[in-house]
C-alpha cells in the first residue's frame, strides 16, 4: 500500500511503525505486558503540506510524532526521511551522527510552553543552542541570527537576554517556534502547539505558523486533538485510534465524507458554535480501550454502531477506498456516514442569518 502521490516521493514516510512500552511488575521488575502506544502505522508526509494527526487522548498520536523524529526508539517499522541534500535516509537504524544531520532538517514544537523551555537559560541561549550544537554560528553572528528569528516570530531582538519566566504562554510558544526554526528545517513536528493557549492567542500562533510555512516552505506534521484547529490548518488529516491510523484523507474529504465510523463519531461530538444547531450529538458509548489490552478484531468494534461479526474477529487494514482516501473499515464502501454538512453560518452573523428585531 502506498499513500504517496504517483510522482512525488514523500518527505517522510513511515511503514508499520510500532512503539511498545513495557509494563514492569512482579518481584524483579519483570516485563508483564506492553502498552502498544503505536501499533503499526503507515503514514507519509509530503513536501510542503500540513498533515494533521488527530485522535482522543491516549490514542498514541504524540508517541507517533516522537518516534518518527527518534526521540523514542521505535519497536519495529521503517522511517524514511528524504533529505533534500543527502537523499533518503532510514532513521530507525541511524546512528547519532546521522541523526544529528537529519535533525537539522527535522525539528519539533512541543505542547507545553512552560515545561519545554529551560528556565535557567536565557531566550538567546535557548534559541541559539541548535546553532551552537551544529557549529553553524558563534559570537555576534549568533546574536544576529537569534535576533532575526525573534523578530520573525513577533518578538523583539532585545528579548534575547531575558529568561522564559518573563514571557506569557503565547510568547513562550513563539520562543519554542523560533528554536524549531533556527536550523531552517524542512519538516516541523508540531505536538499540540496551541492547545495550552487561550483562544485569541491560539489564533495568533496559528496565523504565525501559516505565515512561516509560506515563507520558509515548511512541512508540518500537526498533532492536535482539537478538530476545528486541525481542519483549519491541515491539507490532509490522519485519524488515530488506540495506536492505529484508521483514516487518512484530504481535509475537506475527511470532514465531509468520512469513511470510518470513528471519524463520524468524532465529528458529531464537536459542539457547533451556533445556538440554532442544537442537535443531540450522536452518542459514542463506552470509553477508549486500554492500549495494553485492546479488543479483538477492529479496535473500535465495541463502540461502533455499525459493527458486524466480521469486525469482532478480523482487524481491517488501512486501505485506499477512493483515490487518496484511506480507511480501516471492512464496510467503508457500504456505510454512508455523516460528516459536517455544508458550511456552517459564520457565528458573528455576518452571513445571512435573520437579524434580531431590535437594535
Amino acid at each position, binding site marked *: 500500500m502506498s499513500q504517496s502521490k504517483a510522482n512525488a516521493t514523500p518527505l517522510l514516510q513511515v511503514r508499520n511503525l510500532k512503539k511498545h512500552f513495557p509494563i514492569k511488575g512482579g518481584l524483579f521488575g519483570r516485563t508483564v505486558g506492553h502498552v502498544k502506544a503505536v501499533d503499526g502505522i503507515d503514514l507519509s508526509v509530503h513536501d510542503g503540506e500540513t498533515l494533521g494527526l488527530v485522535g*482522543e*487522548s491516549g490514542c498514541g498520536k504524540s508517541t507517533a510524532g516522537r518516534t518518527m523524529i527518534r526521540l523514542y526508539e521505535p519497536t519495529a517499522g521503517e522511517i524514511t526521511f528524504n533529505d533534500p541534500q543527502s537523499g533518503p535516509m532510514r532513521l530507525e537504524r541511524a546512528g547519532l551522527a546521522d541523526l544529528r544531520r537529519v535533525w537539522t532538517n527535522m525539528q519539533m514544537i512541543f505542547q507545553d510552553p512552560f515545561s519545554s523551555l529551560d528556565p535557567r537559560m536565557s531566550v538567546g541561549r535557548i534559541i541559539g543552542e541548535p546553532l551552537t550544537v551544529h557549529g553553524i554560528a558563534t559570537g555576534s553572528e549568533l546574536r544576529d541570527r537569534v535576533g532575526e528569528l525573534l523578530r520573525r516570530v513577533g518578538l523583539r531582538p532585545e528579548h534575547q537576554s531575558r529568561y522564559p519566566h518573563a514571557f*506569557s504562554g*503565547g510568547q513562550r510558544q513563539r520562543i519554542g517556534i523560533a528554536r524549531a526554526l533556527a536550523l531552517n528545517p524542512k519538516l516541523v513536528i508540531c505536538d499540540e502547539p496551541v492547545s495550552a493557549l*487561550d*483562544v*485569541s*492567542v*491560539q*489564533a*495568533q500562533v*496559528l*496565523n504565525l505558523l*501559516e505565515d512561516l510555512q509560506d515563507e520558509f516552505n515548511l512541512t508540518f506534521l500537526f498533532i492536535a*486533538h*482539537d*478538530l*476545528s*484547529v486541525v*481542519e*483549519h*490548518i491541515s491539507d490532509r488529516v490522519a485519524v488515530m485510534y488506540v495506536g492505529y491510523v484508521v483514516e487518512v484523507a484530504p481535509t475537506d474529504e475527511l*470532514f465531509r465524507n468520512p469513511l470510518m465510523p470513528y471519524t463520524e*463519531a*468524532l*465529528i*458529531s*461530538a*464537536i*459542539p*457547533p*458554535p*451556533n*445556538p*440554532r*444547531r*442544537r442537535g*443531540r*450529538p450522536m*452518542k*459514542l458509548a463506552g*470509553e*477508549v480501550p486500554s492500549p495494553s489490552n485492546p479488543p479483538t478484531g477492529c479496535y473500535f468494534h465495541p463502540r461502533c454502531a455499525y459493527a458486524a461479526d466480521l469486525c469482532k474477529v478480523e482487524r481491517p487494514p488501512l486501505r485506499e477506498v477512493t483515490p487518496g482516501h484511506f480507511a480501516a473499515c471492512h464496510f467503508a464502501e457500504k456505510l454512508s456516514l455523516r460528516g*459536517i454538512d*455544508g*458550511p*456552517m453560518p*459564520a*457565528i*458573528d*452573523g*455576518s*452571513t*445571512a*442569518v*435573520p*437579524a*434580531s428585531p*431590535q*437594535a
Partner: protein
Amino acid sequence: MVAMTSPAAGTAADLDRDNVIDVRNLQVEFRTSLGVVRAVNGVSFGVARGKTLGIVGESGCGKSVTAFAIMQLVANPGVITGGEIVLRAREKAPVNLLTYDPNGDDMRSVRGRHVGMIFQEPMTALNPCYTIGNQIAEGILLHRTSDPAKADAMALDILTRVGLPSPSRLMTTYPHQLSGGMRQRAMIALALSCEPDLLLADEPTTALDVTTQAQILDVMRELQDDIGMSIMFVTHNLGVVAQMCDEVAVMYLGRVVEQAPVEELFDSPRHPYTRALMRSIPQLGAARKGRLEVIQGSVPGQFTKVPGCAFHPRCPDMIPGLCDVQSPRLLAANDDALVSCFLHHEPDGSARVSDVPTPGRVSPSSSSAIATPPAS
C-alpha cells in the same frame, strides 16, 4: 435576612424576571506581596430560574473567581471587598450570601444544598482517601437525611442517573480507579446529590476529550430537566456555550462587558471584544484557509490599571478622548441584553444613535483585514 436594595442600574435584575441568583457589583481582590490584583471588578449578572447562563472569557478574566465567590470559597489572599450576591432558593427566604460568615453554619447549609459546584479537574476536587459512595453520602447526610442507609440509597440513585456503569460497584470505588470522564460524572453526581437550585459548573469539560465532553453535556442537560435547576456554566469554549446556554455573559478583565440571550449574542454581538473573540476561533466547515482574525495586543498584566474602558487599548473601534478616559457602565441595550460600551451608550447613559456599527458586522475601521459579505 437583608433588605433588598433597589437594583443598581445595569444588572440583570433590571430585565425584570425571576432570577435564582443576582450578583451585583461584586468585587474580589487578591492582596499579594507584589500588589493588589482586582480579579473581579464590579461584576453584575443574574441567572434566571431553570435556565443556563454561560460565563465566557479568556483565562484571567475572573470567571472562575466569580464562581468561587458565590460559594464564598475564594482562597487566601483573595478577599471579597464589595457587592451583593442575592440567592432566591426554593424553601428559603431571599438572602444576600455575603452577609453570611464564610466559615459559619449558615453558609455551610447553602453549599451543596442550594448551590452545587463542579470543578474543572475532578482528580483534585475529589478526595482520594474516600470512596465515591462515601463522598456523595456525606453531603446527603448533612442536608437531606440522617439515616445512613437512606443516604446510601440516594447516592446510588444519583450515580445511576449520571449514567455511570455498574453504580453499585462504584459506591466502593476510589477516585483514582476511574477514568477522567467517569470521575467527572461522579463529581456531577456529587454536586447534584442534594438537588441544588443552582449549579456552578467551572469549566467542567475543558480537560476532557470531545467525545467524553459530548457525553457529559448530555448528562447535564438531562439532569437539569429532571431537577429543574439553573446552571452557571463557566467556559471558554463557544461551541459548548452555543449548545448549552440560554444566556451568555462575556467577561473581560474582571467585568461583564455584555450579557445577552445566546442566539442574539451569536447573531449580533455588540461589544467589540465579543466580536473579536468569536472571530478568532477556527470554525469547522467555514469558508476556509483564510487567516484567523486576531485581537491585537494581549491582556494587560494583572497589576496594570487601565484607565477608562479596560478593552480600549486593544479595541479597533476605540473613541479617543472617551474610551480611554471614562469607564462605560453595563446598561440595557434592549429588553433582554446588556452591554458596557460607548459605541452603544453615551456617557450619560442614553442610547447612542449614530456611529453604532451594524449588529453582527464590523465597522469599517476594523474590517480592513477581512471582507464581510453583506447581511442579506
